[in-house]
């Protein structure tokens, strides 16, 4: 192939197959382990099946047929924290429930992420003045993404998870956290 015509041939229709031809039959792409790992993790979060209040119903709706979280590869809700890498705190966290939730988080293997779903998980919501409610899960857990709403619609949860995807990929590109 002539070097002069190469630029033109890589644009326009059919460019992909011509690029494959240029790379050779092996289709070799150079990258780093971190980036491939991040790509895999960010496109297949395994959330823990856990819900604390009404937000959990929106989370369930999100996983069910109408909204179909499986489109993004996030549908594998795991009943065991040992199999999960994403904790969606969906609902009001009380002081009574805080130790069990913390234990679930501790039982999850690294790498792991936390989404605070809804007003209660973000900052206590309408129960912020109560004696029994934790004023935001970020008082006990490192939250990666906050999703506002009371409760957030399934689309909002999807957007939150896609935001987390961006965050995971970007962090790995920078060689940063987790």
């Amino acid at each position, binding site marked *: 192939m002539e070097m002069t015509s190469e630029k033109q041939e890589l644009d326009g229709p059919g460019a992909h197959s011509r690029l494959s031809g240029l790379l050779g039959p092996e289709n070799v792409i150079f990258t780093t382990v971190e980036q491939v790992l991040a790509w895999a993790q960010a496109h297949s979060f395994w959330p823990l099946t856990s819900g604390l209040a009404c937000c959990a119903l929106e989370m369930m709706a999100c996983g069910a047929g109408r909204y179909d979280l499986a489109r993004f590869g996030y549908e594998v809700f795991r009943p065991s924290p040992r199999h999960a890498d994403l904790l969606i705190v969906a609902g009001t966290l009380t002081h*009574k429930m*805080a130790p069990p939730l913390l234990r679930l988080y501790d039982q999850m293997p690294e790498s792991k992420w936390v989404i605070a779903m809804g007003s209660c998980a973000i900052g206590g919501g309408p129960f912020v003045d109560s*004696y029994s409610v934790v004023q935001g899960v970020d*008082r006990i857990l490192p939250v990666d993404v906050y999703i506002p709403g009371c409760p957030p619609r399934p689309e909002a949860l999807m957007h939150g998870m896609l935001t987390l995807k961006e965050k995971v990929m970007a962090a790995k590109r920078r060689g940063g956290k987790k």
Partner: protein
Amino acid sequence: MNLEMIAAGSLETKPEALLNEMRQLRDNPVFGFDRLIDLTAVDRGETFELVYRLNSLLHDRDLLVRAKVSLEQPTIASVSEIWESALFGEREVHDMFGIVFEGHPELEPLLAPEEGFGFFPLRKSYTLPGRSGQTDGGNGR
């Protein structure tokens, strides 16, 4: 016991006499209060008032039994050996008011966290924490 008060549906009793009277109310077929359907407390400012709601399936009748204990030493006998349904109610009142039920087999937090709140939310002296998350806990433990 004051029969007129029982007939009127509301009986006030002394804490020392509570167990004795409660046992009579259950075992004497004239009263026949075989069920304890609610147990709670009220902070009256000067005293705590325990409130027991009894029900008789035999006579289809309700009775409120009230007993006052002091704020400084809130202690009263447990009625859990008379009605087992008192077990949870007394634990809840213990969480919320810090009232001690003597003779309760397992007076541990029911609604409060395992180590307790560190304060008693339904006491009038308790103030809500506010957005800062800080509380002085009223006259906590």
